[in-house]
């Protein structure tokens, strides 16, 4: 009996590699290891857990207290606003999929809505807006080959967080009432917060989680 050329027979080729991975009707469909699902179960779990944690923490803990009690000008609370983005950075660090940022942002926004956010259901849109700019930030740093560096992640976090400053100031009308210098300072605070609280801290946490072997 002639042996069939293994290279031509995908079933035999596959059986030489991971014999237990795909069986039955899935064997033929998954031979090149592509799942028919966009997210794996693990990615869904990670994104959901981080989104829920982010929603709880963002809604319940008044981080702005750290600033409001001493900073005399409007816009100072932007210095701690990066905590909204932290969870999306962590999920990207753990899954390396930018679309999980969207998932986490949606869940986080929805949890915020359920906790009675002042913005109501718009909270979801706001989180998605921030998530979109975070994704944009990661795309930009990858263009400059900084996708794995601390600097790159810091800048991505900064870009993601600074986006919400003009958003809020425009939709609340503050931008036309308050001096432009305060707006610029608020943007700078937002960027700094995104750099440290979102970018750098998020990278550190995701690295530690990966190194621990939990995921």
């Amino acid at each position, binding site marked *: 009996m002639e042996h069939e050329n293994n290279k031509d027979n995908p079933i035999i080729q596959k059986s030489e590699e991971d014999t237990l991975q795909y069986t039955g009707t899935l064997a033929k469909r998954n031979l090149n290891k592509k799942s028919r699902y966009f997210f794996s179960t693990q990615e869904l779990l990670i994104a959901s857990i981080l989104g829920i944690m982010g929603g709880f923490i963002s809604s319940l803990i008044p981080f702005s207290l750290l600033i409001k009690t001493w900073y005399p000008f409007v816009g100072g609370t932007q210095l701690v606003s990066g905590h909204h983005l932290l969870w999306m950075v962590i999920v990207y660090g753990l899954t390396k999929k930018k679309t999980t940022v969207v998932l986490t942002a949606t869940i986080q926004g929805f949890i915020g809505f359920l906790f009675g956010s002042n913005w109501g259901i718009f909270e979801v849109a706001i989180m998605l807006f921030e998530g979109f700019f975070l994704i944009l930030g990661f795309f930009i740093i990858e263009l400059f080959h900084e996708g794995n560096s601390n600097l790159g992640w810091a800048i991505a976090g900064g870009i993601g967080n600074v986006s919400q400053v003009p958003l809020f100031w425009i*939709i609340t009308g503050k931008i036309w009432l*308050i001096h432009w210098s305060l707006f610029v*300072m608020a943007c700078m605070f937002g960027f700094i917060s995104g750099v440290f609280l979102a970018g750098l801290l998020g990278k550190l946490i995701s690295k530690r989680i990966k190194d621990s072997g939990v995921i």
Partner: protein
Amino acid sequence: MKARSLNIIIAIIIFSAIFGSLFYYNWNLYMETKDQFNECDDSCCLRITGNVSDEKFIGISYLLNGSFTRVEDVEFHVLNMAGVEENRTISGVILWDILISYNLLGEDAEYIRFQSIDGYTTFNIPIRLIRSNPEMVIIVTHEDGQLLEPKTADGDGPLAAAVDFDCIKDDSEMQQIFEDNYQDFVHNSKLNAKNLDTIIVI
């Protein structure tokens, strides 16, 4: 030194320089405003300025001791820009009573605007609305029966402004003011200034 590190340092220096100069500018403005409150001989004062017969500082003690007409535990209907509604139970002094007690308003005064300690400013509010709905525009001293905490204690006080939504909702001039400020609909959350320290008459 590597070019990348040098670029990072230069960027940080430029960033700090811009921030420092903006902070210095605003700090000078803040100190000038604080100096203007040297005339205040109370722990906290409400300053009324602008198109007035005489700039006035009203101490919080006067606002609390019954010198002016107060409203107690009234429910103010608040609508914010996301369309979320709530009711607040507040107490305070009727603003119109303050303005006429001292005969402050200039002859051609048409609007007032509230300003907070941190520089936040509200839209203009027509004085005719305050005149026709005096109990709907108040200087808040208490909420839910409790004295307002100052900003340093994460409060909205010691003074705040409150304008009931029913006062402005059907007014065409308010609708125009909100439209001119790129707002889709009239809502009173913007007019309820926290940490109030100044009323500007225009």
